[in-house]
């Protein structure tokens, strides 16, 4: 279905409000919307709510044969197919540009930055490795799918536990949860995406744009950083062109945001672990 454009009134009001220092939902320019993380009963399932934007990530794994040229490396796959559930502008079997860019950014942020130890997924070199799959389901689109998807993916990977295995003479046996505690993945760092949108010839910069803000924006940029102040990916393509200083200014904002978000993710994971411990003892 075609996208409905906002009215001129909404467009002009949004720009005027920014000039007056306000955002439509009452946030400050550099505020993220409220982030809610809820975990499923199984390991590796997390639903992220960023304001009205909702994303579900589910991690699963299976044992496969490695590539011959990289016999000790496991796999991590991301699936980011968008269904019309999030927005009826998405169609099954028809990739939108948004989908391509989101999917590539997740790849760069999590895989290319080597956030996950793929060597650690090796079971028997050249024979069997783990293939980890992250299915990212977009449920509701109220802007900034990238940041929400990235948070969902990395949180789900951190929450995930794969079954313990026993290797005996090349024979691999999976152990059930009763037999052995499942094993977390080894994760080197936590990349977090921070998206910016630019308005009024670049004078106004906001983070975490809503859908309406995305429709009105003149340009955007997504920075992926981790808590060690490493830029893991950076993407700005087209839209309004920027001064170098503007980009560096965004980096400084992103560093602060990434610290905040990482703490929230950690706190949510800790709280869930505590809950699980209690329920197990029962």
């Amino acid at each position, binding site marked *: 279905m075609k996208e409905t454009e906002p009215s001129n009134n909404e467009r002009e009001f949004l720009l005027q409000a920014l000039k007056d220092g306000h955002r439509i939902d009452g946030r400050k320019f550099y505020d993220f919307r409220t982030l809610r993380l809820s975990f499923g009963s199984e390991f590796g399932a997390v639903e992220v709510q960023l304001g009205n934007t909702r994303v579900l990530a589910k991690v699963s794994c299976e044992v496969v*044969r490695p590539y011959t040229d990289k016999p000790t490396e496991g796999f991590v796959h991301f699936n980011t197919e968008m269904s019309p559930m999030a927005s009826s502008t998405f169609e099954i079997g028809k990739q939108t540009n948004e989908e391509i860019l989101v999917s590539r950014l997740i790849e760069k942020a999590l895989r290319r930055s080597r956030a996950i130890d793929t060597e650690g997924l090796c079971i028997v070199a050249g024979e069997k490795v783990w293939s980890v799959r992250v299915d990212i389901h977009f449920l509701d689109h109220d802007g900034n799918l990238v940041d929400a998807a990235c948070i969902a993916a990395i949180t789900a990977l951190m929450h995930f536990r794969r079954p313990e295995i026993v290797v005996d003479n090349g024979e691999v046996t999976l152990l059930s949860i009763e037999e052995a505690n499942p094993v977390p993945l080894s994760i080197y760092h936590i990349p977090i995406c921070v998206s910016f949108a630019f308005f009024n010839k670049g004078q106004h910069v906001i983070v975490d744009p809503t859908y309406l803000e995305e429709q009105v924006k003149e340009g955007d940029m997504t920075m992926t950083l981790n808590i060690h102040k490493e830029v893991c990916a950076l993407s700005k393509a087209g839209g309004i062109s920027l001064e170098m200083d503007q980009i560096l200014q965004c980096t400084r904002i992103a560093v602060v945001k990434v610290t905040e978000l990482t703490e929230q993710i950690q706190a949510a994971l800790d709280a869930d672990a505590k809950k699980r411990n209690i329920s197990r003892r029962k």
Partner: protein
Amino acid sequence: MLISLQRKDRASLEPAQGSFSHHRQHGLRIDGRRTTELRKIRSITSTLSQADGSAYLEHGNTKILAAVYGPREVRSKTNIIHERCYINVEFSMAPFSTTERRRRAKTDKRMLEIAQFVKQSFEPVVLTQIYPRSQVDIYLQILQHDGGILEACINATTLALMDAGVAMEDYVCACTAGWIDKEPALDLNSVEEAQDTSEMTVALLPKSGKIALLQMEARLHVDKLEEVLQLASDGCRQIHTVLDRTIRDRAEDLAHKMPSSS
């Protein structure tokens, strides 16, 4: 019957290679360049007779052809934009362009992404509003891949669009830079790219000095960002000189060939 179940369907834009390191000797890079040195760039325009504009560009060992058709009538009605023209970019890589022969599906996300980046970089620069309800097609073909595909695509597109006489506000000049060992390095080749090097592609509008596109992959500390960004921008300015020369040479050449009017 032998059982060998291997996955051969790996898709990668990085050319396959062994694990040879890029240790620098006497402060020089693997191909003998200094850290702030560009690879040799050679470009010519109007290489294709059928296209409205075209360019061939060699950036080191990366070779690319760009063809522009249009502005012309919109091919599919759904793409009509009433107040400006629609820009369509198609990017492909010849199967022989990498060390290992590889055919890529049309749906390869990395290739679609590059096309999307080129499209988005040029949309604000081309004076699209003077070609309402029309279409400009940009076809890009990599013939040989030695790193820096996106920069080559953007530079070749700039030349081809200018050759086609499409009205533009400015050049769009792109260049890469990265961080190798303990130093920033300009214009990475594929060997340098393939390692875990962080690499940045910058597209600059030389007149305003503003950045139209910025892409970065693999980790780089925030404190080093400015330095790399600065280096890449400088590279863009150097490339601007080269592209400008190509355009001017061609224009002068044409002027010579014109029957003298006075």
